[in-house]
Structure formats: structure tokens, C-alpha cells
């Protein structure tokens, strides 16, 4: 959207604030849904507030201050606001796209991102991952021999490669058990660029996208499977926009892939009560709600939903560079989610994104009470 078109569209936000709350009709409860508004409390942190900030910035009525950066760079990009507003009101923009566009413009003008978000960009430039880890250690978790070429490639993602290695290991284990051949890019896998795109650092993201697609081409990939919801969305939605072309690859989240290739009848869970947290990038971002649930239902007869689920899901609080720049806010959001999970009587809170798991686990260390697992881990256990 051109700036003048965007500006024109922003006048259509009617300040109804419906974007701050979950659909109370289906939930039968009045519950907040925008974590940044719920945590920071000022209107400027709500979607409609940010629409006004966007309008003022585009119209040249606001000189960005430290607070402007705090407001925009603490946005989680969770899309909960868009899920509520879309179709209900006359506003036709995608909120997350507006906020990301705004961040990109600010960065272009020399404002932001925040120091910690800049720091991980430097690491991505140097190490091809945001964690400051050596590129050569990307597959240090790998115990099996896995080819580097193949039609199906498992794109591991930085968080599973360096921080939540158990997810990478479990995913490989399930892939092996499925009997379907697959490959790994190894050192040729670079950060997908999501942490950069969510914080307005688009230039470097384009380079990463080009590299990853070239690496996949060289590997002979026709299908890419992701255990990270963020990588999956970035490839699916951002790469085509960034590069101006279709990728010509089949892109699947592990939940979709496993549902196809695993023999449902053989999955046996340990009988514990399970609930599921929709990662924003997978659910609202990509519309993938059912495959993980179908697998979980096969695993457990006591699968329960939290009140805020699917489109009404409460964000774990980690995304869009928030965990790096606003760790307290990120943990607060995750703690609310854990409380909700506990409220269902679940013993295990399952997600299907390593970054959600990381943040929920970090919060869990403080509040405890429910174990956090990735879908791949449960599947690996069930198939063992």
C-alpha cells in the first residue's frame, strides 16, 4: 500500500476498541486479547492507538520520541487485533502489516530498532543466527546421519538449532520414524529473517531470503517442513513479498506434514491432560489451527481447550523482538497464558513453535504448575 493510500485507510478506524478484547460471545467471558494494551495500559499501546500514532507519523504530525519507539517496537505482531477487527468494521488494513511497515519506515529514517534488537541483527549478519552462536554449531544437536540433499527439507530454524535443541532432535526423530526421506541444510541454513522483518530491518532480511532459497534449490528441495511457526510464516508470507515472486516450493508446518505421514492409530500419549497454545504465526498468521489439534486428539483423550484459543488466542509474548527488548513484558504475557492453561486442569501445555516454548518455559520457571512441550516432542515420545 502506498503511504497516501495507507493514510487514507487509517481514517477508518472508529476507535471502537473491539480489537482489545476476545470474542466474548464464543468465550462466554469478557477477556483481554491485546497483550501490549493489557500490560502497558495506555491507549497508545492498543491497536487503535497505534493506528492513530501511525496516522500522525505518516501525516508528519509526530516527531518520533523514545516513547514512540517503545510503543511500536513492543508490538508483538500477534494479529489478535486484526482477527477481531477484520470483517466487523470498515477498516481494511492488516494491522500487523501496518505496524511492521511503520517500524520499517522508522528504521529507514534512523529511528529504532531498540538496542537489543539491533544487537541480534548484528549477530545475524555475522553468524547467520540471532543468538551470537557459531554457524558451525548449527547442527550440534544432531545425532543421526541426515543427507544434505533431498526433495523434502526440514528447515530447523535458529531457536531449535541453538536454544531449544530438544525440538530439533524430536522433529528429526519423528521424521525418521515416519519413513519419509528428508534432508537438512546444515550450515547452509541461515536465519529466516523473521526477527529482522518484525523489527523493521528489511534490508538484511532480503539477503537471508535469497540465500535460503538458493540453498534449498541446491539441495533439490521441492517441499520444506518447518517446526518453527515463525520461519514457516516468514517463508510463506514474507518471502514472496520481499522478493516479488512465488517461491515454487511446497511449504508445510510440521503439524501439517506429520498429519499426512504419520500412522494415526499408532500414536499413544501418556494419558496426561493436554492443552494447546496456538502460536500466533501459525494460527492467525497462517490459518493453521486444526492439524496440531487433530494430532493432539490422537495422542490424548483428555485434550482440553483454553478459553482463548484459535483466533482468540492470547499471545505468548515473545515475538517481534519483544523478548529481547522487553523481557519483563514477554514473561508477563507468558505467565498469563500459563495461568490460563493451569485453569483448564491441564498438566501439559503444548505449542508448536520453539519460541513460544522458550518464553512459556522461562515464565514457567517462575510460576510453575504446568509442563511446556512442543508438539514434536510429544509425537517423538509417542512413537518411541
Amino acid at each position, binding site marked *: 500500500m502506498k503511504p497516501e493510500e495507507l*493514510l*487514507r*485507510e*487509517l*481514517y*477508518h478506524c*472508529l*476507535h*471502537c*476498541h*473491539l480489537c*482489545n*478484547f476476545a*470474542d*466474548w*460471545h464464543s468465550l*462466554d*467471558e*469478557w477477556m483481554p486479547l491485546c497483550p501490549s494494551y493489557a500490560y502497558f*495500559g*495506555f*491507549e*497508545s499501546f*492498543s491497536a*487503535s*492507538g497505534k493506528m*492513530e*500514532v501511525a496516522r*500522525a507519523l505518516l501525516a508528519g*504530525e*509526530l*516527531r518520533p*520520541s523514545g*516513547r*514512540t519507539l517503545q*510503543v511500536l517496537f513492543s508490538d508483538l505482531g500477534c494479529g489478535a487485533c486484526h482477527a477481531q477487527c477484520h*470483517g*466487523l*468494521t*470498515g*477498516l481494511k488494513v492488516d494491522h500487523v502489516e501496518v505496524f511492521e511497515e511503520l517500524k520499517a519506515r522508522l528504521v529507514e529514517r534512523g529511528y529504532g530498532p531498540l538496542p537489543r534488537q539491533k544487537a541480534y541483527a548484528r549477530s545475524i549478519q555475522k553468524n547467520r543466527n540471532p543468538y551470537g552462536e557459531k554457524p558451525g554449531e548449527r547442527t550440534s544437536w544432531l545425532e543421526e546421519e541426515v543427507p544434505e540433499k533431498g526433495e523434502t527439507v526440514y528447515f530447523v530454524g535458529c531457536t531449535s538449532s541453538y536454544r531449544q535443541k530438544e525440538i530439533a532432535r524430536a522433529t528429526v526423530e519423528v521424521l525418521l520414524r515416519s519413513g519419509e526421506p528428508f534432508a537438512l541444510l546444515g550450515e547452509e541454513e541461515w536465519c529466516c529473517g523473521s526477527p529482522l522483518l518484525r523489527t523493521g530491518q528489511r534490508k538484511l532480511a532480503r539477503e537471508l531470503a535469497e540465500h535460503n532459497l538458493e540453498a534449498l534449490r541446491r539441495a533439490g528441495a521441492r517441499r520444506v517442513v518447518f517446526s518453527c511457526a515463525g520461519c514457516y510464516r516468514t517463508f510463506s508470507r514474507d518471502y514472496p513479498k520481499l522478493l516479488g515472486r512465488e517461491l515454487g516450493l511446497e511449504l508445510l508446518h510440521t503439524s501439517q506434514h506429520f498429519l499426512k505421514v504419520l500412522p494415526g492409530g499408532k500414536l499413544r500419549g501418556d494419558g496426561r491432560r493436554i492443552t494447546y497454545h496456538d502460536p500466533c504465526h501459525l494460527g492467525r498468521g497462517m490459518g493453521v489451527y486444526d492439524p496440531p489439534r487433530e494430532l493432539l486428539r490422537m495422542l490424548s483423550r483428555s485434550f482440553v481447550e483454553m478459553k482463548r484459543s484459535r483466533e482468540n488466542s492470547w499471545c505468548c509474548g515473545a515475538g517481534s523482538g519483544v523478548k529481547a527488548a522487553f523481557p519483563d513484558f514477554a514473561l508477563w504475557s507468558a505467565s498469563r497464558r500459563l495461568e490460563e492453561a493451569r485453569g483448564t486442569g491441564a498438566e501439559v501445555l503444548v505449542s508448536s513453535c520453539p519460541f513460544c516454548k522458550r518464553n512459556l518455559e522461562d515464565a514457567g520457571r517462575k510460576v510453575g504448575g504446568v509442563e511446556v512441550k512442543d508438539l514434536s516432542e510429544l509425537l517423538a515420545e509417542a512413537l518411541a
Partner: protein
Amino acid sequence: MSQRIRTLEKRLADIVGEENVSSDPTDLIPFERDDQFFLVPPHRPDLVVRPGSTEEVQGVLRLAYRLRVPVVPLASGINRKGLCIPSRGGILLDLRRMNRILEISEEMMTATVEPGVSFGQLVNEVKKTGLRVITPWAPSTASVLANYMLRGIYGPATRYGTDHLISIEVVLPDGRLLRTGSANTPTSRPLPYCNLVNGPDLCKLFQANPGTMGVLTRGTIRLYPMPEVMKPFMASFPDYESMVKPAIELTVKDVVEACWTMTFTPSSLRTLTSGGRLEGLADLFERDFFSMWLYVAGEKWRAERDEERMRKIVEEGGGSLLPLPPETEEEMIKDEIWERTSVRGWKKGNLYGCSFYGVMKLAPEYYRVCREISFRYGFDEFHYEAVPVAPFHGQLAYNDPCILWDAGDPEQVRKMRRVHREIMRGLLRVGIYGWFRPFPGVVESRKLGEYGRLWRALKELIDPRHIMNPGKPPL
């Protein structure tokens, strides 16, 4: 930022906590305009303050009063007509932290709420008791207290009217606390349920004053029984005139709880129904669609009797009841008792309205005048509604000429200013009771004779330093 604001910010932080005050432009910008910016010029507050209790509101007002700083209360900030625009700067008092439902009394059929309680929040709690909140066609985030304080228009206003507020607790501009009605009687327990005691009903003094007399910190409202049966109907009529008599008769005889006469141009109908169940309906019309939206409700025996009476009155008036698909019927019921949220009117982007109270029998003339002006300026997405709200004579009707338009287009903004002026003039020429709410630029107390003078004198008495929401009626 001036030294004065910096000092004020520190003092306010002492009252409500640092984390609840801001003077950064980024936090102020969201309050500087609403979708009526073409009529009420945008203006930024100097500070946003978020009190969490009555005591904190008192503290803020005491300080503001002493320093003569304007205060603009905001309960949910939806109001679309400039009522929360801080035209003289000062403190934007965001009351959304005060969001407790203090009591739902099934026995008294009341709820006592703080200003940050939304309709959605309250409806959801009240429905557990089998009682009903009378709701507007507004977003579910709207504040119950602000809406009832301003007096609104509600789905079932034909039967239940427009006043559902019994008593309030209000912080006066100088920080003193006033409770109205029976809460003042010196008994051993506070009973806020009655407004008929000890003298005049002071709650009414604060009603329809847009934050200009003080800050409401709690209010006790009326609840109603949820009807055993509710059945919606839609009738079409050949023209507006033929809807008048049946509308009045249905109201006076208390046959329906809601009687909305509504007229749509084909293009407005097309936009409003797009993507919904009635999509395609507009293709059936070459000229305006004159319709009446009716709800029969009550105990089973009564609903059956009223349906029969309603059918007769509609048919005798020349109307035809339209067959409604069960899904549409279901949606209409949900809308009436808030089992779904819908803000369809905003599908185009913006909605202009110029709501007022008028005489039901003059509705066809209001409609014609407003429609002509709207079309003359090129706005063909026009619709009109008139709802009788006074069961005893059926003539008092809420009216709203509505135009779907695009505020993002500067040319349309310019035109809309002229449309507004012409519509107001045109309606006054036809003869109306008055404007729906005390909107700035619409209600001018100086043109209201002795009533206006007394209203200003009361404001002077209660807010001699004019700190409360300056720039709004009556000043």
C-alpha cells in the same frame, strides 16, 4: 514540554503512580481526534492520567481544580462526536482501569458498576442471572455508565425508553464526593437503589452533561427480565408515510418492544449487506427500501397475542411482513440481546449521523429533507431511521439520518461539513424536539432561552472554575 506540565505530571504521579501518567505526545495523539474530526477540530491533551479508584479521581480533581487545569473524563473513548476531544488541553482522565462490576442484585434488578465497565462485560455477567441489560447498537466495549449517563438509544427503546440510570456517585470538580438518591439516607447500610427520596433527583442533573459537571465513579442501573419469547420481524412498506401510523399504534398499544422504521437507498443497502446473509437484497430494489424492524417479546402467551396484533396493524397500514430465513431471524435476536457483536454501519469506513428527537409523524419529511441534501452533495449511500420511544403517545421518536462515507478523502470531508450544516438547518426548519446528545457545535445553550441560562448557571455553581471538559455544552 513546559515546566508547568512537568510539575503537574509529578504531582499527578504522586496520586496515581508514575506508571499511570504520561505527557509524551505518542500517548496523547490517540485522544486528539475522533471520527467527527471534520466538525470538532483535533486537539491534544497535555497529559493522560489513569486513576484506579474514586479516591484517586478525587485527588486528581482536587489538584486540577486548584491549578485550574481542564479535565476530560473518558470512560471507553468510543464516543464519536467530539465529546472527549480536549479542546482546551489539560488532563485526559482515562477511567478504564475502574472496571469493576460492584454488584448485580437480582432482588432489586440492578447492577452497580464503575465507569470502565463495558456493556459486553456486564451483559455477560448479567445473563447468568436470567436478567437483561438494555443495550444500544454500539460496540460492546462502550461504557455502560457513560452511555446511560449520556442517555442513549437502545434496541428495545420503544418499550423500555431511554433512561436506565437510578443513582450515581460523582466526584465534583473540587474533589468532593456526591451520592444521589437513597445512598444518602443516614441508615446503617448504603442503599443506592432508589431515586425518589429526600427531594429532587440529582442524578438527572448529571445526565446528558458530557463530563462537564464532575466525574461519575459508580452508578446503579436498572436491569430487566429476559423475555421468555423473542421474535423478530421485518415488514416492507411502499413509502415512509405509510409506516407512521402503524409505528405509533404499535408503540401506544405496547405491542412490540422495538419498532425501528428504517429506509435505505439501494447503494447503502448494498454496502451494509455486503458479506452478510442479506447480500444481494439491494438488487431487488430500484428505489429506496422502506422497512420496519419489529420485535415481539414477552411471556409466551403475550408474544403470541402481540404477534397477532402486530400482523394486523402492519397489514392494515399497507405493509407486508417479509419471510425471514431462520438464520437472519437468529441473527436479529442475537443483535437485540447482544449474543453477537456487529458494527455493520461502519462497513464503508465512516458513518455520519445527525441524531435528534423529533415527531414521529414528521419522520417522512425529515427523511426527504436529509436525503435530498445528501444526494445533492453526491452521497447516495444514505439511510434513515426513526424509532418511537415514548409508549404513552408514540410520537416522540429518535431519528438519525445516516450517510456512509469516506473520511480519508479530503474532498468528502469538505463536502460533509456543508452537508452537516445544511441538514441541521433543514431539520430545524421542519421542526424537531432537539438534538440527541449535547454535542459540541450542535447544541448551543445560548440559543435555548431561559433553559440555556439556567443550565449554564448550574454548571457555574458546580464547576465555577470551568475545569470540566471545557468547550462542551452548556458552555
